[in-house]
């Protein structure tokens, strides 16, 4: 994988405003908000699988939806480098550094649509992500119609069949006439992948694509995704809460906690040279299929659960659960520290003071 940065995210934030309570309205208080993503930075290189890992509610999905432009960010920048053929169609004025597009700005309709083809998303729930009233064929035809791909029905059928073959749903004619409920979970997820591929994207956000699938077929979908990546030169943002899956498929892992990235490094480093106490806790908590484990109490060094994203603790947001919490942690938010060239951590323990 080269060092070509395909997506550069800087200071990205997404706050969801909460409805103000009557008391707040009466006392003229400002409405509160859920700080789902609270200032994150990362670069994604072309051809890599970049993982976002973290507990429920830490903002992984929100990040994915921001990158896919399903929701607008509260602030921050997302610079995306489109593929050369898309770049040709973009007016020079909107480009940053000649080859990047600012995803967070309001783009004209036609350009926005053009960029939709570049970044696609695969959802966690393969049932919910397919329209239950449409047949597989129509589900796959939707993106073609929207983007005017293929001028005749015949051409479209060929494209759809090719996509189904690519995700190993063969023979395609056996699947095109089915409704989503006539497919197994794995088959549904393949259809979702086929739909994402039809538009020829360069970046795919995969939001927990195997979490709802049976263990016995997860590997199959993961392998399919890896194969497709090699074949099509794709880049993935892979979202998961399962560190084992992340370590299996990802090149780099970013660990999120309460809307922040606390540690980011290549997979081996995260697992073998773990720095952040939260990452350590996560790793310690992962169960292993080893029957001798039942005689040991698993040491999970952190207590309690993730606090609400509405009232974020001051200082380091992890300090109430951290076994190493120091004074400074309660006062000041830790900076992102470059521990080694590819390994960044946000923790006062590693600050050179």
């Amino acid at each position, binding site marked *: 994988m080269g060092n070509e940065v395909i997506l550069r995210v800087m200071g990205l934030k997404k706050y969801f405003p909460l409805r103000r309570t009557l008391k707040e309205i009466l006392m003229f208080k400002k409405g509160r908000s859920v700080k789902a993503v609270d200032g994150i930075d990362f670069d994604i290189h072309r051809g890599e699988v970049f993982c976002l890992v973290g507990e429920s509610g830490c903002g992984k999905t929100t990040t994915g939806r921001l990158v*896919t432009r399903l929701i607008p960010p509260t602030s921050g920048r997302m610079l995306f480098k489109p593929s050369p053929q898309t770049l040709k169609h973009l007016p020079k004025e909107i480009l940053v550094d000649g080859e990047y597009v600012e995803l967070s700005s309001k783009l004209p309709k036609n350009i926005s649509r053009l960029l939709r083809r570049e970044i696609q998303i695969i*959802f966690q*729930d393969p049932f919910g992500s397919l*329209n239950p009233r*449409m047949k597989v064929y129509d589900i796959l035809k939707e*993106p073609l119609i929207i983007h005017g791909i293929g001028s005749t029905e015949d051409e479209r059928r060929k494209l759809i069949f090719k996509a189904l073959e690519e995700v190993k749903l063969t023979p395609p004619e056996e699947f095109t006439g089915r409704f989503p409920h006539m497919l197994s979970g794995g088959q549904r997820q393949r259809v979702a992948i086929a739909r994402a591929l039809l538009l020829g994207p360069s970046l795919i956000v995969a939001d927990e694509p195997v979490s709802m699938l049976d263990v016995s077929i997860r590997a199959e979908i993961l392998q399919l995704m890896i194969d497709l990546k090699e074949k099509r030169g794709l880049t993935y943002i892979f979202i998961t809460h399962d560190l084992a899956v992340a370590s299996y498929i990802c090149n780099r892992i970013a660990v999120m906690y309460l809307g922040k990235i606390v540690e980011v490094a290549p997979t081996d480093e995260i697992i073998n040279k773990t720095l952040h106490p939260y990452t350590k806790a996560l790793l310690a908590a992962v169960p292993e299929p080893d029957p001798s484990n039942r005689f040991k109490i698993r040491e999970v060094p952190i207590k309690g659960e993730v606090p609400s994203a509405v009232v974020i603790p001051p200082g380091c947001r992890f300090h109430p659960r951290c076994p190493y919490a120091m004074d400074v942690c309660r006062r000041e938010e830790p900076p992102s520290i470059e521990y080694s060239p590819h390994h960044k951590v946000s923790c006062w323990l590693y600050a050179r003071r």
Partner: protein
Amino acid sequence: MKLAKILENESFRIFIRSVVSKAGLTFLFVMVAISIYVVATMPLDFGIRVWSNPKLWADNPKNAPPIWVNYFSNPKLMEHVRIVISKPARVESVEGGGKIFTYVVTYRHGYEQFPQTIIIRFQNVTYYTRYTPVIEVSVRRPDRLVIERLFVWRALTTAGKPPYVRSERIDIEGYKEAAPQLSTFLLREFNITITPERILSREVPATEIIMGKPTVKDENLQFKPLKGRYVFTFKVRTYSDKDYVGGIAMVFVGRAYGLMGTDNLGRDLALGLIYGFPVALLIGVVTSVMTTAIGALAGIVSGYYGGFVDEAIQRVCDVLNNIPLLPLLILMTFIVKNPASKIKISPLAVIVMVLIAFGWAGLAIVIRSMVLPIKSQPFIEAAIAAGASKLRVMFKHILPQVAPFIFAQMIFFTPSAILSEAAISFLGLGDPSIPTWGQILEASYRAQALQNGFWWWVIPPGILIMYAAITFVFIAQGLEPVVEPRLRTR
């Protein structure tokens, strides 16, 4: 091919399994069939041209029950009879020009009652010269007595240019020309002296003299109806070869009429009631289709757009939902029915428009709440991620999810539209030019039909209103398990 597909469809199978849906569908089928028949056979302006045209009903008995009451009652009520003759039985040419047409009307009487009266109509007596045709009427009774020259009628006017066309309606009661002849007849045949004045004043009705046998009982003269064949002969003398008579009609005004009886104007209720079918269907379908269409659109837009649009639509809905509909309807129809008002809209259209304008709000609120969870479903996000426009998302992806519900609502709304129209009409605010069941009911109420025992004027429209409502309620009930899968029983 298509039909087979529908029959195989699971939703349809679930729908048709229940008894109520079968009943509902049957009712609907009957309703639609009758409506098609009505539209095909009756004039569209039936209301103005027929129903509200008193001339057409003048010969009918008033407040007459339907003839089938004779199955249940004794003595039998005389059925209303109308005989039309358009072809003369004989035509003779007269030397020196003109012809004599002889028309014969035969009537067989079989009741212990007299007709209320006898009405004779000459239709389109057409002539071309100043010599007007003369019609001479005579009767032969079952007892072989003959009333010669019961009366002689002349078309007297010759104003303007030929051809001259005259029509005449003669009610034998109080008809001056006939009284002297009847007086003579009684004297000659029965030796009874009744002055023509007494006949004209109806003290001794002409009908009874023509069709009865006089008896004197306790000094009182009484007539008993003569059963059997009456032959009325009409001799028409014309004075030009071109002259002719369009037709001759005789009405023996009875006491029982048609399938559904008559109202106080003699209108045939069967016609009014049958005409009510397409009207009810139209009111119901137009109102419910428009209401659900607007409601669904507003609901989807409101739910999907959110924000200010949502807030605005929902506030409008709240307001609409909290305005009491009936007083408003009354006010609106009152305004348009006021002769002084400049707004010339049919009150029926006003009723339909008000029902639509105020009916969609409730649906919009429900649809909105259904759209909210659908909107956040991943497949909607998938469509957006694929680049679908807002319109496409709303109509291609959200609408089909709520469509079954909308369809059921449409059917559910139909009876309430029909009932609302009936209620308004019952309050006398309907559209007089279009008869509806509610209006027939209202007329009966105004005529105190119930107090007078004219049940045939009250019960059938009531039943039909219920029938229409129940048809759609049944279908809606049958649809419920289709739309709400949790109600499905195994």
